[in-house]
């Protein structure tokens, strides 16, 4: 009996395993990184707060028409600030950019990842990355002097399709027509050109996301599909695209977020008119919220600047939603990023 008593007496007290940092240096280490990370939370909150505090007056006086209306007047006593055409213009340009950019980006990613010989693929990757880092004002300069004449010419070719009647061939394509039916003197300044600029800006983003997804795909999956007798095209349509679709969608949404917020590049190639242009993509009038801010800010009246803050807030909320969605989709498609 007494032996057992002795043994239990010698069992040391149960040691506590601590997962929380306890030394001062560790606590400092975690504390500093944690407070630095909370910057991100503070930043988003502060942006919302300050823009809201500045734009509150505008929302109060303009009401819901701020988003839907289409007038802009800064004369004292007659102040009307409405961004309907600009908001729709941003969306229209982004849609055009996506339509033009997505096939280009997916083709480029497929070319780099599956078709090109190694050295060419490497050079192409560097080029695409470099273009992704190209400042938008440089793209704007290039777009104004180099791209605009070319795309305006394409626009004039497309305008020929707005009403075709050659013998048995009779059709109208209303989106290529002008809203007032007039014959345009110029094809510059249209949403069509701005859409091309946006496409140039978002192609590198979508390409790099898509390429990353492609490169992380299971090669055995592709090889086994080929071994079962699949051809390149059937493997692409039935194996690669379905597997990568989530990531590609996320990449496209990332591009959409960038397109919606694009400022300087569009500012130079688009004719900003505060009159809604629904689908007449070749007409020399369009809108863009971000470019509106740049255009009106310089000599804005105090109330006008508050209205611009409100426009910025709307833009921010819009891009925040799009980017958040993109982040969720990309993260779901790239589970290896989560540890």
């Amino acid at each position, binding site marked *: 009996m007494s032996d057992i008593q002795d043994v239990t007496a010698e069992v040391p007290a149960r040691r506590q395993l601590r997962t929380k*940092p306890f030394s001062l240096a560790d606590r400092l280490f975690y504390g500093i990184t944690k407070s630095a990370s909370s910057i991100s939370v503070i930043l988003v909150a502060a942006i919302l707060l300050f823009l809201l505090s500045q734009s509150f007056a505008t929302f109060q006086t303009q009401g819901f028409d701020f988003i839907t209306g289409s007038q802009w007047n800064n004369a004292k006593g007659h102040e009307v600030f409405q961004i309907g055409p600009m908001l729709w213009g941003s969306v229209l340009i982004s849609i055009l950019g996506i339509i033009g950019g997505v096939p280009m980006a997916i*083709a480029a990613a497929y070319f780099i990842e599956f078709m090109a010989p190694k050295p060419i693929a490497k050079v192409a990757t560097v080029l695409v990355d470099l273009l992704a880092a190209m400042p*938008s*004002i440089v793209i704007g300069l290039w777009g104004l002097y180099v791209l605009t004449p070319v795309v305006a010419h394409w626009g004039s070719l497309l305008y020929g399709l707005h009403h075709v009647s050659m013998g048995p061939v009779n059709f109208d394509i209303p989106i290529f027509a002008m809203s007032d039916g007039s014959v345009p003197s110029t094809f510059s300044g249209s949403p069509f050109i701005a859409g091309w600029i946006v496409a140039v800006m978002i*192609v590198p983003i979508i390409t790099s996301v898509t390429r990353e997804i492609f490169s992380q795909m299971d090669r055995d999956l592709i090889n086994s599909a080929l071994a079962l007798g699949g051809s390149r095209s059937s493997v692409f349509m039935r194996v690669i695209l379905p597997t990568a679709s989530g990531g590609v969608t996320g990449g496209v949404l990332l591009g959409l977020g*960038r397109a919606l917020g694009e400022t*300087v590049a569009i500012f130079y190639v688009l004719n900003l008119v505060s009159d809604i242009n629904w689908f007449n993509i070749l007409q020399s009038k369009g809108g863009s919220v971000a470019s509106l*801010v740049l255009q009106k800010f310089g000599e804005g009246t105090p109330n006008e600047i508050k209205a611009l803050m409100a426009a910025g807030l709307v*833009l921010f909320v819009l*891009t925040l939603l799009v980017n958040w969605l993109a982040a969720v989709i990309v993260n779901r498609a790239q589970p290896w990023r989560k540890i």
Partner: protein
Amino acid sequence: MSQLDLTALPRPTKQPWQVRNPRNTWLVAGASVVPMFLAVVITLLTNIDATLATLLVFLPLQLIASIGVGQFIFGKKGRGDAILVIFTVFFSTLVGVLLVSVMFSVVVDGLKAMSPQFFGQNNHYISSTTSLEYGGVGHAILGTVLIVGLTTLFTIPLGILIAIYLTETRGRMRPTVRTLVQAISGLPSVVSGLFIYAFLIAPSFSAHGLTQQAGWVGSIALFPLMLPTVARIAEEALRLVPQELRNGAYALGAPAFKAFWQVTLPAAKSGLITAALLGVARIIGETAPLILTTAPSNDTNLNPFVGQIATLPTYLYGYINQVQATSQQRAWGAALVILILVFVLFTLARVLGSAKSTKAKKRK
């Protein structure tokens, strides 16, 4: 009976699937070259537009010819492949043409404005018609270096700390922080400028606002744009450090702080430098925030805390749609300077970043 010849056959130099029939190579090449030749001939003869010739003559003919060749060589399978290859190559070429066009036009037009004084002089005595022998972007380069340098000073430590929080700790806020950082990376640059304007310049707190437009306000306006880039790339760099290294340090009894400081940080050093360089490259050409928060200047200003200050993007912005040819030349010149800066930062990042990260590249 003759002796059986036992000398070995030469070993094939290529794997079976690498052997190409030269006839097929000629056919595939011909399916593209002949339509191209036809398109060129038709363009020259009928004088139609080059775009139309490409879209209406070259592309359909190339498509039909390639489908035919694919059918001939591979049977039914070849048709789909021909379509896939033609479209991929067409769109990839379009991307390549656009990319090369941007760089080519900036370099060619920018070189016309290049001269030693373009780098060294400021804009003090320059009107829109002054010839290119006088004046330059010297003041704008200095302003950009000051403003971007100031941003770098506080953004890089913060960005790297966020990356450390995301990879080295088990904090509960990590998913939130990661999502928010990704969300901020999509922040429109003009909104960043508006935010800092509302925060510091507009009369939010007092009747006159906290400050006037100045270089340091621009630095802060660049912060939200640079932070997510640095944080994301630094996170990738820290994640490339094998977990075994950290575990080894912990097993030897190192506290988390020391394990990070003496093991993880040295291992990830090159990646973190890359993060810093690419972060700088991200903001060096940002225009919209600087237009809203700094006042442009024609003179050299070495104090980013007081007064007007010029930067390369705002300089370019001021000259971009002027009518005079010399002004447009100055714009192209400034664009080339920005491009050179981005290119140098990129090359540095690649050279410094490729030193360590190559071996840990493909991870699942």
